[in-house]
């Protein structure tokens, strides 16, 4: 699978290289026209200092094509630094204009994002000619200056594009690797479940069989969390609404007669961090397991999330009065120990049969979600 994804990435890279080549070709034509203009009309060949970046761009492009992305990532900022040096030591208005472009690159690339850098550089290519044309009367427009400033901005645009591509390839590779690890985790969970079931096949002791069934349920719960990890949110976040629905289904299949409805606030999907989701799924599975033995009717699971906390309510009629604070805090039982241990891990509070009539009320603070890449 990994090889296949890499192949798909390569196709994307080739397309992007094609676009970069188009920009490079435009830049080459501009440089050539510039040189011819200087020779024919000015009778001398003097190139501004920033033209040094031209061979650097070619080297970057060649390295990109060969797949030396790390070298490109190192060379690109170095070429920017060299550009800053030229801007600082600039003597002519042309070179100072180049400093404008360099400043755009530095401020947007390092303090904003690559996408913004490309947008600003691209807008500069459009806006600058308009600025020069409207600032001067048509007969006084310094076309040489205009041309060179445009060239500088195109250059910056290409550098930003190369840099963006390099970062994108790096991110694609990481996504592929994380996907591969996900695959291995799920495969290992299924293998472990298989091992438990093999033991189950060779065992007739009802108590041991119950233990195997319990283990099986926990593996399925962990699997449901991993299946709902959101790849768009950088694999840190789990769609817990889907996970909760899956947990109820697992518990229903393992305990015939058990049923529970699940309601979400305003039909919103609830996302939780992976480090909270896995323990919470096991806690809920244990509670559901306990409830399934109580034969309680009309049970429902409700999850509410605001900016500060996550609240989980399990409601229902405790017909046989089997749910008590004692049962869930009793660390002598495996279930009690598991729940207490995991509640501590996610720093959650639990109330059993609280005054509002909930059978269980779990609340904990959720971590601030700030995991999207710029």
């Amino acid at each position: 699978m990994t090889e296949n994804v890499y192949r798909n990435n390569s196709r994307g890279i080739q397309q992007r290289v094609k676009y970069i080549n188009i920009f490079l070709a435009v830049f080459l034509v501009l440089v050539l026209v510039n040189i011819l203009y200087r020779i024919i009309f000015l009778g001398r060949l003097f190139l501004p200092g920033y033209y040094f970046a031209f061979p650097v761009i070619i080297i970057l492009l060649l390295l990109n094509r060969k797949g030396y992305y790390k070298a490109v990532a190192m060379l690109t900022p170095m070429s920017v630094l060299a550009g800053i040096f030229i801007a600082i030591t600039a003597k002519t208005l042309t070179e100072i204009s180049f400093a404008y472009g360099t400043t755009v690159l530095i401020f947007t690339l390092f303090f904003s994002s690559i996408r913004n850098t490309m947008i600003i550089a691209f807008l500069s290519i459009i806006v600058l000619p308009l600025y020069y044309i409207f600032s001067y009367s048509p007969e006084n427009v310094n076309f040489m200056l205009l041309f060179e400033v445009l060239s500088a901005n195109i250059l910056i645009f290409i550098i930003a594009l190369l840099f963006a591509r390099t970062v994108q390839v790096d991110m694609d590779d990481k996504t592929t690797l994380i996907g591969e690890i996900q695959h291995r985790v799920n495969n290992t969970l299924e293998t472990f479940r298989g091992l438990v079931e093999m033991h189950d096949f060779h065992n007739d002791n009802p108590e041991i069989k119950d233990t195997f069934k319990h283990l099986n349920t926990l593996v399925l719960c962990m699997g449901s969390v991993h299946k709902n990890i959101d790849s768009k949110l950088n694999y840190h976040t789990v769609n817990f609404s889907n996970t909760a629905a899956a947990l109820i289904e697992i518990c229903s299949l393992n305990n015939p007669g058990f049923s529970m409805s699940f309601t979400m606030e305003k039909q919103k999907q609830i996302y939780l961090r992976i480090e909270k989701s896995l323990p919470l799924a096991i806690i809920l599975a244990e509670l559901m397991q306990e409830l399934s033995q109580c034969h309680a009717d009309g049970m429902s699971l409700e999850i509410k999330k605001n900016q500060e906390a996550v609240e989980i309510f399990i409601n229902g009629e405790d017909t046989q009065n089997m749910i008590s604070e004692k049962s869930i805090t009793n660390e002598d039982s495996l279930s009690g120990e598991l729940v207490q241990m995991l509640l501590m891990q996610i720093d959650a509070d639990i109330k059993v049969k609280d005054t509002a009539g909930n059978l269980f009320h779990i609340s904990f603070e959720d971590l601030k979600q700030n995991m999207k890449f710029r």
Partner: protein
Amino acid sequence: MNKAILCVDDEAIILSVMQKKLQKYFTDRVKIYSALNAESALELINDLHAKEIQLMVVIADYLMPGMRGDEFLLKVGNNYPWIKSIMVTGMAEKEIIEDLRSRKIVKAVFYKPWLDDELFSTVEECMDF
């Protein structure tokens, strides 16, 4: 009994347990066969066909050494269009799964670890008893 199901997975433990559980579920109504890779599975399918054993369903893992599950199921679908295919996977690319579904190469896809009852009922639907 000449109806059969074939399970294909490179993980011997998963394969063995899947075979046992399916055999337990279908009892003597169906014979469950297994193969550790796609190549030997194709040979087995040819053998079963030669022996006039009616292979109804193939359950294959997506990621296997050698031929991958999607390629294997595509070959099975081309050569034996009456055989229904089910794929099990750790985490296959969504685009590939959608492609297989849209081309009706697979009847269903189950992500590991799967719920046995769901798998069994889907297989039973495919069996068309």
